[in-house]
């Protein structure tokens, strides 16, 4: 900063307060958890299973829905059409509605009485109280992050490059897979990580659709309800540590190679 003015000092003060506001509760929780309790918690099968379940249901939901979400992002980035504003509004809807309400909506959508539920039953899947239902609930609330990031990525790919590829004899499908997708990949990856992260941390929508099998956010809530703060804390710390490690690993894998 070139010049320290009064207003800058005020801004720095407020900035520090906000950082403290984010760090202090987390730090407090970490400090109150001893390595021994953390280690003991990590050895509990119930905890380990729930963390594993949380990771793979979120990952599966992210990858499954990405197959349709990425092409949609491409359409939104490349074409103007009547009702486009409405479509983008619909995409952002899961972000603004209460997640418990979203859970209720999904439950109605996948329950045995619904068309999807009946198709599932015919295939031997009951979405309610099932990892598939968890994945759907997670994807519902987190998919806007992927679509918006991928759309920004495709928008940043110059249309000229796609046109050049067409004049070189490539089909539109090949242009998408060899030009548009690789050039938008960094944004898409970032969107996938965000969607995955948001899915893992989802509580409200998932608890309505599936209390069991228990994902970690539900497990934390249950331990808090049944045994109190002291028992919920180590699971929370462990889950945060594992989540952080996963995201750092993913970011590292997706880093720009010079």
């Amino acid at each position: 900063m070139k010049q320290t003015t009064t207003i800058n000092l005020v801004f720095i003060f407020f900035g520090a307060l906000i950082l403290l506001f984010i760090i202090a509760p987390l730090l407090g929780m970490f400090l109150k958890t001893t390595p021994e309790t953390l280690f003991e918690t990590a050895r509990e099968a119930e905890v380990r299973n729930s963390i594993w379940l949380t990771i793979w249901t979120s990952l599966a939901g992210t990858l499954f829905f990405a197959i349709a979400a990425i092409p949609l992002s491409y359409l939104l980035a490349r074409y103007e059409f009547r009702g486009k504003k409405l479509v983008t509004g619909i995409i952002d809807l899961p972000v603004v509605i209460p997640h418990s309400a979203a859970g209720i909506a999904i439950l109605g959508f996948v329950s045995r009485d619904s068309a999807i539920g009946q198709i599932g039953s015919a295939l031997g899947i009951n979405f309610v109280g099932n990892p598939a239902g968890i994945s759907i609930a997670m994807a519902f609330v987190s998919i806007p992050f992927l679509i918006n990031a991928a759309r920004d990525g495709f928008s940043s790919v110059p249309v000229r490059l796609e046109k050049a590829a067409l004049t070189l004899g490539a089909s539109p499908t090949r242009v998408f897979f060899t030009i548009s997708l690789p050039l938008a990949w960094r944004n898409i990856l970032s969107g996938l990580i965000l969607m995955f992260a948001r899915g893992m941390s989802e509580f409200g929508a998932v608890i309505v659709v599936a209390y069991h099998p228990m994902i970690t956010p539900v497990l934390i809530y249950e331990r808090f309800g049944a045994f109190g703060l002291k028992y919920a804390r180590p699971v929370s710390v462990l889950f945060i540590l594992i989540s952080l490690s996963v995201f750092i690993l993913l970011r590292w894998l997706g880093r720009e190679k010079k």
Partner: protein
Amino acid sequence: MLTVRGITKQFGDFSLKNVSFTVNQGDYFILLGESGAGKSMVLETIAGLVKPDSGAILLDDHDITREKIQHRRIGLVFQDHAVFPHLKVRENIAYALHGRKFSTATKKTTVDAVSRQLSIDHLLDRRPYSLSGGELQRVALARTLVQEPRILLLDEPLASLDNRLKTELRALLRSIHHNGHTLIHVTHDYEEALSLGTRIAIMDKGTVVQEGSPENVLLHPQSEFVAHFAGLRNFFPVTLHTQQGQNWAQTGNLKINLVTEETRSEGYILLRGEDIILSNDPVDTSMTNNFQGKVTEIVLSRYGNEVTINIGITLHALVTPGSVMKLGLSVGKEIWAHFKATAVKYIAR
């Protein structure tokens, strides 16, 4: 042979209006016009990137107006190259070979051959971000040539290059043309047009206003855009001679001194009308081009009086009405015309 017939396209405020021209096999065809005249849009229409509202495009008598872009085999080199930034030079060049029935070895041989022809064989493993503008232009050309296009479209290929690179790339484009390729080259630069074109079409405000050989188009301008080129009426095909460091251009029996670094002997000279000085008697100055001739016409133009003098070739001098009075100029009068060697511009073909 490519025939563009009555192409019309509305694009916001701009429109292409009844654009028609014919490019013969082996032509180096120039679309010359100011920016915004619609030249690039014509190229994109031929390539299939823009669908015309009406009109037709025929390639070897086959209507390709509605043909898919990827099936046309028309090469287009974009003004800003549009080299794929995430692919190596080799992968960029090989892009057009995908899906065609070539073995990996054949593909490699093809890429190597084209890159040698364009002198970029040392860049094959580089990424585009590390290349200069001239190198990118060559990669874009190589990538297009490798698909053996039936016709090659170039959008302002020399616009972003410095003079040295321009000369190099002109030589390269000439050699591509001599190898039998048919080219359509879009430019706003009449020097480029004269230097490379075997045929020229002038575009203005979305339509083709004139088409013909370079001599024909520039000596008989049918549009203000062409007529606007300074001194364009003093435009003569010549052969260049050099002796003991001195250059002169020969046209008929006339020797015109000039200064140029060009070495190619076939070309044109251009001389601005306002650079010609008239006098009733021979004068002793540093000017090395001094010719006597007869005034054949005096016409009032928007830039002054245009005095036409026959000195063996027809010279058009631009003078003020005051000078016409002072020298007592009239049709039939013998007069001297003088101009400096450095005022003569030589454009090699």
